[in-house]
């Protein structure tokens, strides 16, 4: 019988994915980019939709929410997982609403009048069974997957609009999006890139070797020299781990200093972030890693060592967000958020 095999196969896949996530966070497994994580999460959610047993949209949403909670608990710092779950939940709601025939706007209106009159109406709406719902949801998830696959290219296509020739661009750490962005611009323009190495993991070195192999003039500097060289920099282009609802960032360690230095010199700070990084909620999670390789171990017991992985960057230090759907100001992010996710899904 196909049913049980499918179930076990599904649970195996989910367990494998969870353990991958857990390992990826501790630094021992292969480091995966957020785009990969997003794709895998979405693929997994599609599989769940296809193979799990559910009869109505509400059931499906419950299953997905449950799995989503497990996945985010496995690796809280990887916010793309939660974002994809919320996207899928929104897709389900939309498809359900479309099947029911009511217009999308009527359901999503958050006007005060609606809130007062409707009350807890939305809860019971998802019990209806629609036959084509499954196919519709899977089709919509496929669309989401195609969108995910094209994000990096979409962002890189906008590179020439933002980089002119003979510019000096500064970046920090390693971001695949920024790498693709700069390489795309380098095909037509000549410019100079300064990479801050971002200790202690020094991902900046990898970025620098990759950019220089593409023929871009690159310089590697230590983190301490960021402010010293900032006066000669024309633009700062960075990637980020998460974009927050207020337009702020949760980015790699050292980004806040970089943003402050850029603000001081009035240098524009551009963030290349695809839409799947927009996250309505983040857990206050700071990884503490003691991989500083301190040689003299006898004093280590008497000393507190802090090694945060992420920095919070407030939205007033950011000039522009470049995403796969175009460029936005930080003050517009809340609007995009409301289009991507349903407010009830913010808390999984």
């Amino acid at each position, binding site marked *: 019988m196909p049913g049980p095999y499918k179930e076990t196969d599904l649970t195996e896949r989910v367990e494998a994915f969870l353990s991958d996530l857990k390992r990826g966070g501790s630094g021992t497994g292969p480091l995966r980019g957020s785009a990969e994580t997003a794709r895998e999460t979405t693929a997994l959610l599609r599989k769940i939709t296809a193979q799990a047993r559910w009869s109505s949209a509400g059931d499906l949403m419950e299953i997905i929410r449950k799995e989503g909670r497990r996945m985010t608990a496995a690796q809280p710092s990887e916010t793309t997982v939660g974002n994809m779950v919320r996207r899928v939940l929104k897709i389900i709601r939309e498809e359900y609403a479309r099947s029911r025939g009511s217009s999308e706007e009527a359901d999503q209106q958050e006007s005060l009048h609606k809130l007062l009159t409707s009350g807890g109406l939305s809860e019971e709406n998802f019990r209806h069974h629609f036959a084509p719902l499954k196919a519709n949801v899977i089709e919509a998830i496929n669309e989401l997957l195609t969108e995910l696959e094209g994000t990096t290219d979409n962002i890189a296509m906008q590179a020439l609009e933002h980089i002119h020739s003979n510019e000096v661009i500064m970046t920090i750490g390693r971001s695949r999006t920024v790498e693709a962005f700069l390489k795309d611009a380098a095909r037509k323009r000549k410019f100079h890139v300064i990479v801050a190495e971002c200790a202690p*993991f020094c991902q900046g070195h990898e970025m620098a070797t990759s950019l220089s192999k593409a023929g871009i003039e690159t310089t590697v500097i230590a983190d301490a*020299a960021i402010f010293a060289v900032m006066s000669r920099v024309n633009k700062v282009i960075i990637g980020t781990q998460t974009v927050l609802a207020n337009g702020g960032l949760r980015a790699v360690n050292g980004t806040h*200093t970089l943003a402050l230095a850029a603000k001081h010199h009035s240098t524009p700070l551009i963030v290349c972030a695809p839409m799947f990084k927009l996250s309505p909620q983040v857990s206050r999670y700071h990884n503490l890693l003691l991989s500083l390789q301190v040689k003299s171990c006898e004093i280590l017991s008497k000393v507190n060592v802090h*090694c945060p992985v992420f920095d919070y960057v407030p939205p007033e230090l950011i000039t522009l967000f470049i995403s796969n759907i175009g460029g936005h100001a930080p003050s517009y992010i809340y609007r995009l958020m409301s289009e991507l996710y349903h407010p009830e899904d913010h808390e999984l």
Partner: protein
Amino acid sequence: MCNRCALLHFPAVISFFQQVLKMIFFKEVILGFRYWVIASGWCFFRRNVNDRQDDIERAKTEGKELTKEEKQRLRKEKKQQKKNKEKKDEKASQGSEKEKKSGSLAAAAPQPPAKSTTVKTPSAVPAPAPVSVPSSLEAPAPVDKPSKTKAELKAERRARQEAERASKPGKKGEPGQQAASGKQKAPPSELQPVIKRLPEHIQVDNPDVLKKLAKKLERQQVMGLNPTKKIPLRLDYGYKVSLFSHLHQYSRKAPLTQQLSIPSTVIHPAVVRLGLQYSQGIVAGSNARSVALLHAFKQVIRDYITPPNEELSRDLVNKLKPYISFLNQCRPLSASMGNAIKYVKKEISNISSQCKEEEAKSKLLNCIEWYIKEKIILAAKAIAESSIEKINNEDVILVYGCSSLVNHILFEAFEKGRKFRVIVVDSRPRLEGREALRRLVQRGISCTYVLISAVSYILPEVSKVFLGAHALLANGYVMSRVGTSQIALVARAFNVPVLVCCETYKFCERVQTDSFVSNELDDPDDLMVTRNGKTQLESWQEVPSLGLLNLVYDVTPPDFVDLVITELGMIPCTSVPVVLRVKNVDQ
């Protein structure tokens, strides 16, 4: 000359005929005549071909009004040509120009290979320049006469300038001394213009300067003209980022001492040891370097014997010059070392000729001891006393790197019983903070350790920031280890007070607004790191478009600094020139 006149005339004649044709049609007789006068006048004054063509254009368009200006210009040209003629007569012929340039190359040739490789590479850069000049002089000589004479003019001008520079008093590496002597001569109330000479170490991209340095090192030898006993010239290493092509970049694996012959009678062994300690980073930190330098000088003075017909005051200063050049090449001198050297030289030159040698030497030794005691040790005590008022119980103090003065302050405060904890911020690639951490923990102070990228994470806990300084510049900027300005910036963003501690002997008269114009480039290989068994930047030299930048210093603007604590009291950053002036008046 007739040839040149003819050639000059040639385009002039063509255009004159064109003008004549125009005249026939447009009846501009007067213009044409004037134009001919000017054209013929030019051939006597050897105008530059390009300039002349511009003037032709202008004469055509502007007409009468230009002639007066033309005449004035012609008069100036006349005077210049006369001067050139005199210079040319002095130099006898073009051949002497060529001989001079080939002479500098030939001087390199008969030296032993070790020296010639070191000298030839800097002269390889100026060598193409003079080589191209003679080639341009030789090859198109009969045909292209105007360019030949143009090159000749340029060569003459360059030779003249070099002669003037060589004859002017004072050397390139001592602008401070120039300034100081200038100030001493004039009464302190007048503002004397300072004849500033740029130091060599920030003009590395200028091949003339490199040539001059090589020549200076040749001159600064002690015994005769033995070519093995010269101070070698240290070579730059690796690809330099274009923004910093005016600075030296040395490799730690190639210290200057490897190129010295043994035994080396030019440089005192204590100074050689000191140079090696500087270049390998064994002695680091501005106070440590100054104290080590002064101790080495004391040793030099103890071992010094005045040669028979020399005066101690003049000869000893000359003896010190090659040592200082050597140390400068091992590692560029810091501002504090510069001030210490100035003081020592002043004391030496103030020794009267009546003094006997032993007496003079003991006097000098006492002066140096006094300087160390007064300016460094007692100053540190005074600063610690005033800083303790600023440290309260339950304070969280942030320090950066390893500053001997700041550590001293923290030790003193801890002894006095203040309860505080310290956050030590460290940065790659030097990781000096670990040394500070070790010292603090040994005293029993509770510490936290972070890297500089985590400063914005840890700063909300901090109540004050204490920073050390390498030098305080006359426009109020603080020159310190790279990263200091970053910490001051973030502290300002979080409204945490920033206090800089600095002795007055580190104040210097230079001004600087950014970290590019004058800095030190450390060994770029230091940035390489091995993580997970893999070194990403291992083969960075092979990749042509990849550069590593390892800066040592940066400047912090005065608006980030709230207070400077010196032994004269607590002053704002902008009062540094006041202190300098007061010090100079006292001296």
